[in-house]
């Protein structure tokens, strides 16, 4: 059962366009939306949250589009951005009041419980919060109500490692019942890589790779060695060769491992490494 369906979505701006993004995210899974700054990650997420309207294509969240039922669509999404979005002179109390009145499923007791757990003061203005506290407040306001899809736009940027680990746990708890899903965008994947089920990688507004993370990791090898050890046949298969003074590094599809000689070193890559070499390949 799909929770998020992005169907042939395009978005055209004067100097940038997002072309034909098409994927589904089943219930109970986490997708990492990866790419460089300016690749179109935020644009895609803004289309999903309906901050922007698609030029072409449709987006379904839990089976409904924003056109068929805008209110329910918005209610089913929880959004956490890299920038804090509550007005700076709001207090936690103000936010609670507004959310309680606008979201039928908002639970004050759940919200208060999270605030207590994370030691967020009710009386402080949110502009005096630290970055970590702001992220936690956004999480509290989203987790205190019924949502189906969590959209995180670079939400872990600038967080200290301890809070990042907390966020990972939160996301895993969120999807634990198998009914809800998470899509997050990031340009530094390392910390979120472990928990992501699927990876969607875009560059310059277009899809580059899309697969289950485990598949991606298995489908590629990171090859290192000297250029002279590379046969012409292997040369053709290598993706994104990066040279340095003493050798090179590149990605190779695992099925062509037969082309490797004992002179070359190979190991399993990280998603970041796959991404780096793919981007290098496209330049």
């Amino acid at each position: 059962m799909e929770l998020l369906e992005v169907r042939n979505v395009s978005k055209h701006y004067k100097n940038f366009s997002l072309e034909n993004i098409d994927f589904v995210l089943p219930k109970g899974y986490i997708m990492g939306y990866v790419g460089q700054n300016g690749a179109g990650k935020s644009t895609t997420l803004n289309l999903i949250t309906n901050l922007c309207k698609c030029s072409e294509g449709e987006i379904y969240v839990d089976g409904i589009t924003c056109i068929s039922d805008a209110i329910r669509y918005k209610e089913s999404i929880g959004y956490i951005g890299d920038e804090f979005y509550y007005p700076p002179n709001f207090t936690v109390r103000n936010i609670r009041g507004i959310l309680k009145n606008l979201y039928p499923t908002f639970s004050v007791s759940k919200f208060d419980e999270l605030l207590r757990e994370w030691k967020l003061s009710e009386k402080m203005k949110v502009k005096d919060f630290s970055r970590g506290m702001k992220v936690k407040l956004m999480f509290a306001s989203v987790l205190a109500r019924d949502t189906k899809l969590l959209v995180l736009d670079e939400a872990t940027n600038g967080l200290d490692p301890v809070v990042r680990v907390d966020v990972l746990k939160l996301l895993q708890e969120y999807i634990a019942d198998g009914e809800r899903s998470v899509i997050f965008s990031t340009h530094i994947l390392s910390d979120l890589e472990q928990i992501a089920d699927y990876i969607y990688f875009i560059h310059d507004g277009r899809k580059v790779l899309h697969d289950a993370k485990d598949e991606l990791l298995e489908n590629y090898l990171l090859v290192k060695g000297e250029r002279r050890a590379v046969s012409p046949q292997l040369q053709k298969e290598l993706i994104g060769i990066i040279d340095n003074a003493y050798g090179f590094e590149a990605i190779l599809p695992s099925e062509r491992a037969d082309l490797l000689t004992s002179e070359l070193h190979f190991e399993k890559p990280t998603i970041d490494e796959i991404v780096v070499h793919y981007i290098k390949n496209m330049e």
Partner: protein
Amino acid sequence: MRAIQFTKIDFIKTKQQILWILLVIPVVLLFMLRQSSDSPMALVIFCYALFMALVFSTTPFGSCQWQETGFLLLLPATTRERISGRFLYGLSFMVIAALVGVVGMYLGEMISGTVIEAEIIVPFCMVAFAVCMVLMALEYVILYLFGEQQSPNILSLIRMIPGFVFFFGSMGLIGGAQEDPEVTAAFMEYIGGHLMLIGWCSLAAAFVLFAAAAMLCTAVTKKRDFG
């Protein structure tokens, strides 16, 4: 009733300014009382309160940073509800200012001892309120035409002009009426018994224009894209 929530958000966002407006009025009042006692104090005070409302009712546009606008857009409500909320904010802001103005008027009359008959002052206030509403609607339409995120840049310009036009315009009218008593008297005689009617009519017309402006803004914003 989701629109009310947006009104509430605007009020929380701008509450410092509201306090400020409430504080400034008595100060100005005192200042004016000392200046002269023969000008129609009460009317000046009322107009001044409305002038402040006109200027400050656009503050929510100014504090709309990119991500804050995003927050408003993410809330589960339609564009119409969101914009109605903003218009409702402007209207309630002006009602508050008018109430402060009325209190000021009474104070002014008490201190200066000059009492203007209710038959004249009530319709005058109604017309002034109506004119302010139309001006405010105009401001909002311009701000929405430029877009919710662009508005901070042009806000400082837009927020001042209609307010000043209104304040100095009405001051000029009051002054003119005093300078040329014959014309005023003739005019008054002409509209004589219909003062209240004029008051009501202008208020009604203002409400219609106000609502129309809100609808226009909704239509414009619906087509717009964020970001």
